[in-house]
């Protein structure tokens, strides 16, 4: 459990103090992650109170399973950006790590390519989600039971879209950083 560096700047940037824009960006990424972190607690409390309600009062709380499912999806995408920034996506290290150790600059360029690929695919996920948001809005998609308690789906979906967009931009940012020779080659960063 060494990863306590949520507030650390993105990589040991060699290019001096991060610009104001970059600091604002990091705050945004961390803010989204913090929201996701809080949601983990919320999820725990929602589900636990459902258990209590069922066993004491004899009735389940409404919406718990649908809400729990949507909350979970949000947790993942809200924190995707920060996970990318801290290089916590699972990957193998033996070839890439050796390359970064032997030829740091080349490793950095290969890392830039990987980040670019990541930006492409996560960007595509975001792009495809736009249509889903539009559809949710158009068809008034909701969860719950009509007449009892309903919650529209689109606010959740917008947050998912925002999380995906931020994750794609984070990848893109790391590509630019690596091309400009800033930031360490990712494989040498801490892995737990």
């Amino acid at each position, binding site marked *: 459990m060494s990863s306590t560096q949520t507030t650390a700047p993105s990589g040991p940037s060699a290019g001096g103090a991060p610009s104001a824009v970059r600091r604002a960006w990091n705050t945004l990424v961390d803010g989204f992650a913090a929201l996701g972190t809080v949601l983990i607690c919320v999820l725990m409390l929602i589900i636990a109170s459902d258990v209590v309600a069922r066993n004491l009062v004899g009735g389940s709380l409404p919406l718990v399973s649908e809400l729990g499912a949507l909350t979970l999806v949000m*947790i*993942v995408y809200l924190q995707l950006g920060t996970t990318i920034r801290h290089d916590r996506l699972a990957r193998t290290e033996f070839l890439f790590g050796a390359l970064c150790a032997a030829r740091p600059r080349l490793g950095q360029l290969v890392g830039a390519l990987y980040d670019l690929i990541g930006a492409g695919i996560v960007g595509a996920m975001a*792009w495809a*989600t736009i249509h889903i948001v539009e559809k949710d809005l158009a068809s008034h998609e909701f969860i719950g039971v009509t007449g009892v308690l309903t919650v529209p789906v689109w606010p959740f979906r917008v947050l998912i879209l925002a999380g995906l967009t931020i994750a794609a931009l984070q990848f893109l940012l790391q590509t630019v950083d690596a091309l400009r020779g800033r930031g360490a080659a990712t494989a040498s960063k801490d892995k737990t």
Partner: protein
Amino acid sequence: MSVEIGGIAIAALVVLIFLGLPIGISMMVVSFVGVALIRNDTVAMRMLGQVANDSLREYLFAVVPLFVLMGLLVTVSGVGKDTFDLFERLMRRLRAGLGIATVFANAVFASITGISIASASVFARVAVPEMTRHGYGKAFSTGVVAGSSVLGMLIPPSLLMIVYAVLAEESVGRMFLAGVGPGLLLAVIFSVTILLLGTFRRSFVFDRPDEETVPDPFGALQTLRLAVPIVSLVLLVLGGLYGGFLNPTEAGAVGALGALAIALLRRSLTPRVFWNLLVETGQITVSVLFLIVAATFFSRMLAMSGLPNWLAETLLDGSLGHLGFLIVYLALVIVLGCLIDSISIMLILLPIALPVAEAAHFDLIWFGVLTVVAVETGLLTPPFGLSVYTIKSALQDDELTVGNIFRGAFPFVLAMIAALAILIAVPSIATWLARA
């Protein structure tokens, strides 16, 4: 034609993963291109959107952050140390008793945590110093901890069992039940291994004779004080699960809350520590669930290509036979375990292997248990045994090389392979509780 695309996609995936592209990203890229080739890019784009939005939208997946949080909470609250202290006193008269105490303390700790890494880091700090103080060699001590940490993933709750259940569309509750018997079997085999080593290979086990006095057993009150938190957590989670009061997700939530209560009661939690645990929980959750999103896409692409069915027909009708397929599969899992992390192996191989296993009429619960045991050997084998590196970084001892730990863990790799053989021969060890 599509079958070939499926085959090429698998080859491309393996290459990308070895080159070090993040595994989830590799799967997404390969699947996207695969679908675009089999159908067209509009379909690929639509599937990508669906997978991203809907594959995680299951109540069940909430179990992942909850059990991870629970595991991290019990780790900081020192419950692991108490368990070890209790077993140390219980086993003090046995030959190499501390080793066996470590195994059983791990088995109990495993039933409140779902990640082997948590067990490895806790017991590296708790058991290894105590064992070396009593004359055990460092390689052996760390090997015992590494070996018994795999119980964390076998004895429920277990992250790997959850992942398998999702991929195989089996019930998580049943998979959890299926892990109990094999977990106990493995604990017994490990203990026998330690006893044998302690008898016939004393130089491997001990550096010097044990001159330290063994602590006296705790009084009844002290035993109770140490045992109550862990026993109540185990009862809460496993009892709720098996008694049918709780589904797996609820067991996770109640367990996490219970672990939180224990951590608070013991004052081992500052707001800062708690926040860091939550952040860590989030990052583990994201890396696991992002892989699941990617694997969903990958397995849909493969199904579209028709490769798994083709493979099932070819493999099973050919000279390989059912048992032959099983052995080749398990060997492949063990070899991949040397290179890739556990969850990724399952996510890559299972979409291909499950249709074959189904066609061979294997009991998928049993198949899952075998897969998990085989995958877990990868935690102990060089060059990338994750448990070994966890122990190395938990101990921060310069004299102790990674090679030493691998050497110490090797007897346990053999023990796990023996356990696999027993499980293949006697499937009911895994299935009796789950199918009851």
